[in-house]
C-alpha cells in the first residue's frame, strides 16, 4: 500500500498533469482544430488614404511653346524603420548620407526622429511610417551618389516631385500668375483639394486652376493601429492636368517686355521717373490678347514651394513699385487724349458736331470760371474739323462741347428731368466702368472709371464727414507745405461742394482727365472696337484646353461684350483721320518716322496729367491696316511718369511693330499676323503616374517576410530627361508618386 504521503503526491501530480493537459488540449484546439479561427479584423486595421498629387498642366503660347511647365525635383528621404534594422541602427548609413548632403550627422539623426515628449525640435512631425525628407531639391551629384551605391544607403530613397517651372523666367509673369500651397480655406471651399496639391493663386494659374490641376491619384494603405502600413489596398494613379493653350505669343510677349525695358531706360535717361509701364498687343478682329506686358515684374519662381519672407518683403517694398500688379490689365490710369475716341464718338453720335464742320480751337477756354488751356497753350489760330482736332489733339476744341453738354444737362436737371450725360454713356458703351471680362481672376482686371452726377453725390454723402474733418484738421502729417495747403483746400471744397458735378469735370472727362481712368487693356479693347467696326470684345488669353492625350477638350473663344453705338462710317472716319501720314500731322507719328510700314499704322497719343507726378504717356495704335480697312493688331502702350505720349509710349510701341512686322529687326511673328490655328499638342509622352513602387518606402509588408532593404524605386538620374522642346507640352519629368502626407516643413 502506498504511503499516504505518496498518495497525496500522486493527487498533486494528477492535478498538475490535468492542468497542463487541459492547456495543451486548448492550445491544440485554438491553433489547429478551431473552425472559426479569428482573423485580423479589418476594424482594427484601418485604411489611410493618401493623395498622389497630379502634375499641373502646362501653359503654352499660341504656337505651343511652353510658358509654364513642370520641373522634377529630387527629394532625399530616409526611412527610419529600415535604418533601425541595420546592425548599427543605421549609424553608418547616416554618416555616409551626412557626408553626401553636407549636413552634420547629428542634425540628420534629429531630423528623422519622430517628435515626442522627450524629443526636442528639430524632429519629424509627420507620421512615423513616412519616409522623412532630409533634403529637397537635391543636386544631381547627391542623387547620383545615392543612386549608384544603393547598397550603401539602405532606407534612403530619392523621390521625384514636380514643381512649376518657368522657361521664360519672368516672361508674362503677371498674366501667367503663380501657384501656392493649398490652405485650409481652399480645402473648405473645395473638399477635393488636399495639402499635397498646389493651387493657382493668381493670373491664368488661378483662372484655369480647375483644368490645370488635374485629378489627384489616391493611394489607400492598410495601416495597423500604430499607423504603419501593412499593405496597399488600392492605388489610383493621378491624372495630370490639361494643357492650357493661350493666345499669347512667346516672342511677341518677349518683344513687348524688351520694348518696355528699353523705353524705361530711355525715359529715365531723359530725366523722367518712368516708374512703370505696360503694353498690350491684341488682335482687334478676334479679341485675343497676343501679349500683355507690365513693368516692373517679378519672377514667379520665387513662389515655387512657398515664397520666403525675405522675397515677399522685397516684392512688397515701396521702392519696388508693386511688381506683383499687372499694370496692363489691373492698373487703371487717366487715359488723357486717347479718351478722345470716346468723346468724339459722343459728339458725333449726338449730333453736337458734324464730321465736315469746323469748330474753334483757342489757346485757352474759360469753363465754369476756370481757364483751361491747350497743351502748352498751342493753337492753330483757325477752326478745326474733328479730324484735325484729333490729329493735333486740341483740348479746347473738345472742352467747348463738353461744357455745352454740361450746361444742357444742367437745364434738364433744373427742369426736373434726368441729365443726358451723353459722354458718360458713351464711355460706358466703350466698356469704361465695367470689368473687361478677360479670362483672369476678377480682382486682377481693372474696370476703369468716370465721374457723373449720381456717383459724385453718392460719394459725397458717404465721405462728407471725413472731408469736413480733414478740412478742419488740416493735414498735419503731410510734410510738404504746398501739398498740405492743397489737400486742406481740396478737403474744404469737398466738404461743402463735393456733391457738385461741374462743367469743368465734364471738360476734364472729355480729354480723359479728372476721374476718368482706364486700364491699358480696356483702351486696347476700345480701339479694337473702333478699328473692327464696333465690336467690343471680352478679350481672352486662353485659347484652348488640351488634355494629356493631345485632344482638344475645350476651345476658348472671346465673346462679344457689346457693339459700340457708333456707326461704322464714323469709326472709319476716326481711323482714317488718325492714320499716320508721311508727315507729322498726327501726334505720335514722329516716332514712326523711319518705319517702312508707317502709313499702315494709325494711333492716338495721350498725355495725362497726374497731380504731383510726371505725365502718363500713352499711345493707342493699330495696324497694319489692310485694304479692307481692318488692322491686324491693336497695340496700346503706357508709361507711367513717362512724359508725353509721343515722346515715351510711341517709341515703345514702335519697337513692338518693328518686331511684329520685321522692320529693322527680325520678325518675331510668322507672317506678321496673330496665330490663327491651334497648335498640335503632342500627347505628353511621359505623363503617367503608374509609379513602379506599390508601396511607399517605409511601409512594412504584411507577409511573409520584410525582405532585405527594398530601395524605393525612383526615377534614377540615368533615365532620360523628357524633352522639353518647343512643342512638347505635358509636364516634363516623370511625375513620381510622391506621397506627401502630414505637415511639410
Amino acid at each position: 500500500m502506498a504511503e499516504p504521503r505518496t498518495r497525496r503526491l500522486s493527487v498533486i501530480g494528477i492535478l498538475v498533469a490535468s492542468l497542463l493537459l487541459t492547456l495543451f488540449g486548448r492550445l491544440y484546439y485554438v491553433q489547429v482544430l478551431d473552425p472559426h479561427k479569428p482573423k485580423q479584423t479589418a476594424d482594427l486595421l484601418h485604411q489611410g488614404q493618401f493623395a498622389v498629387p497630379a502634375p499641373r498642366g502646362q501653359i503654352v503660347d499660341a504656337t505651343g511653346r511652353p510658358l509654364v511647365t513642370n520641373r522634377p525635383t529630387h527629394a532625399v528621404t530616409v526611412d527610419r524603420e529600415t535604418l533601425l534594422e541595420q546592425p548599427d541602427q543605421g549609424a553608418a548609413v547616416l554618416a555616409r548620407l551626412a557626408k553626401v548632403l553636407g549636413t552634420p550627422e547629428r542634425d540628420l539623426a534629429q531630423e528623422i526622429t519622430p517628435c515626442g515628449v522627450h524629443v526636442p525640435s528639430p524632429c519629424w512631425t509627420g507620421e512615423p511610417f513616412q519616409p522623412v525628407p532630409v533634403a529637397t531639391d537635391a543636386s544631381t551629384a547627391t542623387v547620383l551618389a545615392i543612386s549608384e551605391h544603393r547598397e550603401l544607403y539602405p532606407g534612403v530613397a530619392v523621390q521625384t516631385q514636380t514643381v512649376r517651372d518657368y522657361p521664360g523666367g519672368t516672361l508674362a509673369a503677371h498674366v501667367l500668375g503663380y501657384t501656392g500651397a493649398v490652405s485650409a480655406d481652399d480645402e473648405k471651399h473645395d473638399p477635393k483639394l488636399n495639402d499635397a496639391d498646389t493651387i493657382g493663386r493668381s493670373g491664368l494659374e488661378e483662372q484655369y486652376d480647375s483644368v490645370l490641376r488635374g485629378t489627384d491619384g489616391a493611394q489607400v494603405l492598410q495601416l495597423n493601429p500604430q499607423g504603419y502600413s501593412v499593405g496597399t489596398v488600392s492605388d489610383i494613379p493621378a491624372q495630370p492636368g490639361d494643357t492650357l493653350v493661350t493666345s499669347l505669343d512667346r516672342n511677341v510677349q518677349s518683344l513687348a517686355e524688351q520694348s518696355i525695358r528699353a523705353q524705361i531706360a530711355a525715359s529715365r535717361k531723359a530725366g523722367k521717373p518712368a516708374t512703370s509701364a505696360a503694353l498690350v498687343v491684341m488682335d482687334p478682329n478676334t479679341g485675343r490678347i497676343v501679349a500683355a506686358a507690365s513693368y516692373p515684374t517679378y519672377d514667379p519662381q520665387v513662389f515655387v514651394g512657398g515664397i520666403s519672407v525675405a522675397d515677399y518683403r522685397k516684392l512688397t517694398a515701396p521702392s519696388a513699385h508693386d511688381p506683383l500688379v499687372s499694370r496692363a490689365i489691373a492698373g487703371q490710369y487717366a487715359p488723357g487724349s486717347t479718351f478722345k475716341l470716346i468723346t468724339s464718338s459722343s459728339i458725333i453720335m449726338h449730333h453736337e458736331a458734324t464730321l465736315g464742320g469746323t469748330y474753334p480751337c483757342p489757346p485757352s477756354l474759360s469753363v465754369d470760371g476756370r481757364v483751361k488751356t491747350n497743351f502748352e497753350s498751342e493753337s492753330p489760330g483757325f477752326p478745326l474739323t474733328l479730324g484735325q482736332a484729333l490729329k493735333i489733339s486740341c483740348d479746347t476744341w473738345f472742352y467747348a462741347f463738353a461744357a455745352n453738354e454740361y450746361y444742357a444737362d444742367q437745364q434738364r436737371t433744373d427742369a426736373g428731368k434726368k441729365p443726358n450725360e451723353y459722354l458718360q454713356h458713351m464711355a460706358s458703351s466703350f466698356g469704361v466702368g465695367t470689368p473687361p471680362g478677360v479670362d483672369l481672376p476678377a480682382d486682377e482686371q481693372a474696370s476703369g472709371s468716370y465721374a457723373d452726377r449720381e456717383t459724385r453725390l453718392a460719394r459725397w454723402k458717404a465721405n462728407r464727414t471725413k472731408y469736413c474733418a480733414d478740412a478742419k484738421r488740416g493735414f498735419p502729417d503731410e510734410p510738404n507745405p504746398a501739398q498740405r495747403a492743397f489737400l486742406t483746400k481740396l478737403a474744404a471744397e469737398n466738404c461743402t461742394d463735393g456733391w457738385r458735378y461741374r462743367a469743368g469735370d465734364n471738360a476734364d472727362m472729355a480729354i480723359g482727365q479728372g476721374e476718368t481712368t482706364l486700364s491699358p487693356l480696356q483702351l486696347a479693347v476700345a480701339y479694337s472696337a473702333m478699328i473692327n467696326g464696333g465690336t467690343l470684345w471680352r478679350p481672352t488669353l486662353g485659347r484652348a484646353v488640351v488634355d494629356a492625350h493631345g485632344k482638344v477638350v475645350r476651345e476658348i473663344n472671346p465673346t462679344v461684350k457689346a457693339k459700340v453705338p457708333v456707326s461704322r462710317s464714323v469709326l472709319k472716319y476716326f481711323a482714317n483721320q488718325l492714320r499716320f501720314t508721311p508727315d507729322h500731322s498726327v501726334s505720335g507719328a514722329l516716332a514712326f518716322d523711319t518705319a517702312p510700314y508707317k502709313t499702315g499704322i494709325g494711333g492716338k497719343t495721350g498725355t495725362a496729367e497726374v497731380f504731383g507726378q510726371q505725365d502718363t504717356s500713352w499711345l493707342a495704335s493699330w495696324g497694319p491696316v489692310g485694304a479692307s480697312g481692318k488692322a491686324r493688331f491693336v497695340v496700346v502702350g503706357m508709361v507711367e511718369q513717362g512724359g508725353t505720349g509721343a515722346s515715351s509710349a510711341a517709341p515703345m510701341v514702335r519697337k513692338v511693330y518693328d518686331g511684329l512686322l520685321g522692320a529693322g529687326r527680325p520678325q518675331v511673328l510668322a507672317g506678321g499676323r496673330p496665330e490663327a490655328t491651334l497648335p498640335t499638342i503632342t500627347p505628353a509622352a511621359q505623363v503617367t503616374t503608374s509609379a513602379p513602387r506599390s508601396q511607399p518606402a517605409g511601409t512594412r509588408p504584411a507577409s511573409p517576410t520584410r525582405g532585405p532593404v527594398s530601395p524605393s524605386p525612383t526615377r534614377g538620374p540615368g533615365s532620360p530627361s523628357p524633352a522639353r522642346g518647343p512643342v512638347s507640352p505635358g509636364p516634363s519629368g516623370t511625375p513620381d508618386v510622391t506621397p506627401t502626407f502630414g505637415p511639410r516643413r
Partner: protein
Amino acid sequence: MTLLARDPAAPMRLGPSRVLRPQRIRRGIDVVLCVTTLALALIGAVLVWSATRSRLADEGSNPQGYLYRHLGNVGIGVALAIIAARVDVRRLRTIGPLLYLGSLLGLLAVFAVGTTINGAHAWIMLPGGMELQPSEFMKLGLIAGLAVMFTQWRGSDRAMLRPATPDILLAIGLITVPLVLIMLQPDLGSAMVLAATAFGLLIAADVPARWTLGLIAVGALGVFLAIKSGVLADYQLARFRVFANPGHDPRGAAYNVTQARIAIANGGLFGRGLFQGPQTRGAFVPEQQTDFVYSVAGEEFGLLGAGLIIVLFAVLCWRGLRIAARADRTGRLLAVGVVCWFAFQAFQNIGMNLGLTPVTGLPLPFVSYGGSSMFAQSLAVGLLIAVDRYATTRRPVV
C-alpha cells in the same frame, strides 16, 4: 560552525537543541530541472525580444532594450538560484519563517510606499529604476512558511504524521493574512495563485479531505459573496465578464483576450516564424512582453513552440514532484508548493492567453518579462535543488 544545523524534524524548542553533523551530499544537481528552467527563461528572452523590438523601435529606443534587461534578469535569477541551491535545507526551519515574515513585511510596505501599476497597488519602486513586487516573493514565503509549519507543528496526531485541527487552523491563518493583503492591492491573479498553492500544500501535508473540500466550498462561497458584495474592483469584474463572453466588448476589456487569441490562432502548427507574426509586429497585443508573452510563442512558433513551453512546464513539475517524492517532509512540502505554484500560475497565464481562464495580471514563470517574478521563481528553483541535494535521507538522524 556554518555546517552545523538543527534537526529539521525536531520539535520547535527554545534553548539549545541537538546539533547534527552535516551529511555527505549524495546526489548532484538535478540537471534536467536546471536545463528546463533555463530553457524556459531563454525562450522567454526570445519572445520578449520579439514582442518589444518593433514598438521600441517606434519609440526610437533601442529595439533590444527589453531583451537585454530580460537576459539581465535571467543572470540575476541564475545567481539567486545558485545561492539558494547552496542553502542547507535543514536551515529551512529558520529560513522558512523568515522568508514568510519578510515577504509579509514587504506586502505591508506596499501599502506604505507602494506604487500603482495597471490598477494594482503592488509595486515598490527602488532607487535606480528597479521595481519590486512583494507579492511574487510572498508566494515563495508562504510555501516555505507552511512547509516549516507543517513539519514543526504537528500537533497531537504525531503518529499518523497528519496535521491536527490546531495545525490546520494555524495554516489557514498563515494563508489568510497574505491572501487578504494581496486581495487588497488588489492583485487577484497573485491571490488566486497563492490560494491554489496553499491548497496544494494542504493536500500534500495530509490535511484531511473534509478540510480541503470544506475549504473549496468556503472559497466558492467567498467568491460568490465577493462578486455580489462589490469587494472586487470594477476592472476585475469586467475581466470576469469578458471571460464569460469574450465577444461582448472587443475594444475594451476584451481587447487583450481577442488580440492574443487572434495571434495564437493564426500561428497554426508551425507559427509565422520569429519576428514575423503580424499581431506581434504590429504591437496589437498590449502587455505582450509580460502577461501575454505566450501569444508571441503561439503566433510565431505555432503549436510546436507553444506546446514546447507547456511540455517544459510539465518537465519542471515532474522534476519538482520527483524531488518531493524523495525528500524529507519539509523538503517535500516545499517542493510540492513550488510545483503547485508554477503549475497553477502557468495554467492561469497560458489559460488566459488561450481564453480558458479570466484575465488576471500574472506573468508566465521564467518566460515573461519581469524582475520580481523571475527572482522569486529562481529562488524557488534554487531551493528545489537544495532540497534535492541535501534531503537525501528519508528520516532524520536522531
